[in-house]
């Protein structure tokens, strides 16, 4: 058994980490809040420049034919830096849906453009009321019942929604009658796409949670109350230890799920759901502890903690919430008896 990431996977993630470290600093994110698109063209250029949209595109469509495990650490970095772009959709669920469910003609039409960065895809697996990044994407893959459909966003009505996290851009999308095409392989692919969504979103949550706790640990080492740094109080330490333990243990499952999903393992879907569930629990606790231990300063608009707090809460709901995921896992456990 080999449970570590490959050196190339680590190198890719380290490269991405450097790029977003420079391009997605909190002040840059704040500057984008008031921007019409809210998106940094430089950041998307960097993503394309590193070949990230091509990783999950099959080789016969101009991609690298990689798997989710190749992007797992990159997705953690997305969470760690609160990258505003809907990269889970653009790099993972979009390409996978088209590759797995698309007809040969659809694959050819869309995937090579995705691989070279000329076409950007977004995804809605839970309704069209709140689709991320529809304003900067060219096409949308969405779910209708058990079908996956693809539509060119140019012909759709896209209305921006007001949301809590000023970095997020969410849109209600209206698809005109007859504009969308069904992806014919939906029946076999839907579970695979959902597994990618669950495991990939879990990776983002892990990075995000770790950032909240790292920042809170740093704060607890300097903030003084009652003549001592607050990090020396057990009441504070134990909350940080609890959150850290959850993130650490959840990470083991999240990494395993990425590998199982990438390898089409028999238990990939179960592993992915479990990964999302434990990552959600960890994110919930990290979010709670981070604000609580920062105290009043963390509730201040000018303080950057809110960037992660609000993104975290949005992403706890965006790709299947705790109740939905747990119900599904519970049913799967009973079905295995």
């Amino acid at each position, binding site marked *: 058994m080999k*449970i*570590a990431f490959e050196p190339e996977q680590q190198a890719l993630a380290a490269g991405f980490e450097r790029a977003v470290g420079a391009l997605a600093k909190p002040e840059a994110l704040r500057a984008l809040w008031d921007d019409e698109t809210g998106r940094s063209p430089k950041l998307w250029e960097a993503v394309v420049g590193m070949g990230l949209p091509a990783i999950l595109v099959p080789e016969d469509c101009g991609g690298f034919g990689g798997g989710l495990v190749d992007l797992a650490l990159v997705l953690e970095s997305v969470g760690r830096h609160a990258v505003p772009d809907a990269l889970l959709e653009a790099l993972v669920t979009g390409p996978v849906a088209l590759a797995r469910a698309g007809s040969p003609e659809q694959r050819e039409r869309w995937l090579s453009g995705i691989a070279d960065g000329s076409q950007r895809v977004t995804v809605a697996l839970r309704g069209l009321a709140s689709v991320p990044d529809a304003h900067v994407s060219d096409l949308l893959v969405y779910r209708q019942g058990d079908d996956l459909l693809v539509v060119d966003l140019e012909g759709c009505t896209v209305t921006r929604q007001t949301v809590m996290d000023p970095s997020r851009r969410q849109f209600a999308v209206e698809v005109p009658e007859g504009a969308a095409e069904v992806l014919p392989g939906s029946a076999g692919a839907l579970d695979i796409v959902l597994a990618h969504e669950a495991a990939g979103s879990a990776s983002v949550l892990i990075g995000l949670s770790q950032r909240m706790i790292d920042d809170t640990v740093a704060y607890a080492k300097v903030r003084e109350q009652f003549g001592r740094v607050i990090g020396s109080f057990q009441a504070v330490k134990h909350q*940080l230890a609890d959150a850290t333990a959850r993130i650490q243990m959840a990470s083991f499952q999240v990494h395993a799920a990425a590998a199982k999903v990438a390898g089409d393992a028999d238990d990939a879907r179960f592993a992915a759901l479990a*990964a999302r569930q434990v990552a959600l629990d960890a994110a919930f606790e990290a979010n709670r502890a981070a604000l609580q231990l920062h105290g009043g300063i963390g509730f201040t608009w000018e303080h950057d903690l809110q960037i992660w707090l609000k993104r975290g809460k949005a992403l706890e709901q965006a790709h299947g919430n705790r109740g939905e995921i747990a*119900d599904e896992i519970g049913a799967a456990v009973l079905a295995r008896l």
Partner: protein
Amino acid sequence: MDLTFTPEQQTFRRELQEWFTEHGPKGRLDSPYSEPGYSQHLEWEHALHEAGWAAPSWPSEVGGQGVDAWAELIYDEEYARFRLPERLNKMGLIHGGPTVMAHGTEQQKSEWLPGILTCEDIWCQGFSEPGAGSDLAAVRTTGRIKGDAMIVDGQKIWTSQGIIATTMFALVRTDPESRGHRGLTFVIIDLRSPGVEIRPLGQLHGNPGFAEVFFSGVEVPVANVIGEVGDGWHVASTSLALERGTARGSHTRMEQALVDLARDTAATGASGASVRRLGELAAWVAAYEQAAYASTHEIATGRGKDYASVIKMLGTQILTAVHEENLEVLGADAEVMADHGPNAEMYGMRRNYWHGRGAEIYAGSNEIQRNIIAERQLGLPKEPRG
């Protein structure tokens, strides 16, 4: 990343399964703390030893097979999966023996290790004292060195396997002027020596085996000291890390507890709430299994990243939560269900549940683990001490 076992590992697993199927005890053994039960357990231990399955990861010179960490994990998984009897000498196998291997002299290894495998000696751990539970630096049992002998006086408590043990690995204070963890020494004490008194101590779930051990003027050869005199804290930390790890198939037993919960959930007409809770717990049980694999990977690659405190703290919480939910699902019947649990003497949901609660206390309470995570992993300042 390739999360499958190699063909060699799968062959090893099959060999074990075949052997366990053929030789494993059929049905439940009596409690090892009863006379018939003790002989039944001893018979099983001898069968394991003769076939080379007593401790496959131990070196072949002392009766093991010298297999690697992954094979050891497979062994532990299969042992747990077959619900075989709890090992009679578990404290020696998991903690005492490996500590001797890590810090003992060649002489000490050849003197003590074989007796653990044959069960000629049954080991117990002598760390806890009435005033030193989680705070082992408060150990007060003394060892006065007089020539070649150490004279031990004091008391140990909550000693698992204490009522059947012949041998204790203990922390004693050899420097009477010392405080804290300086001046402690790790020593092997023969409990058959004059001056040792063992009194059974009940546990709240009724499972026997616990003891208090009293020492008055017990003479122990100084040659029984493991490591240096005064360096006991360092030696004991090896044993403590082993105790907090995921060894011995704990993830497999946790999965079995989850399957028991799923069966009971189904049998009692799964409500929406109980299915949801089952799902939440199943996710954490899966994560715990991956934690066991990750920590085996660290051992196998010799990198030794330390997950022990995270695993101990969260693992015991998950296990308790699984049992807690099973009580909830069974309702009043939880009191009488008798067919659960991997351990012969540990039948009944309530016993498993209470044992899980105990696990949150032993091996360094979960509060201590939180301090360790906060101070060693996160680098937060130490709690001020009086």
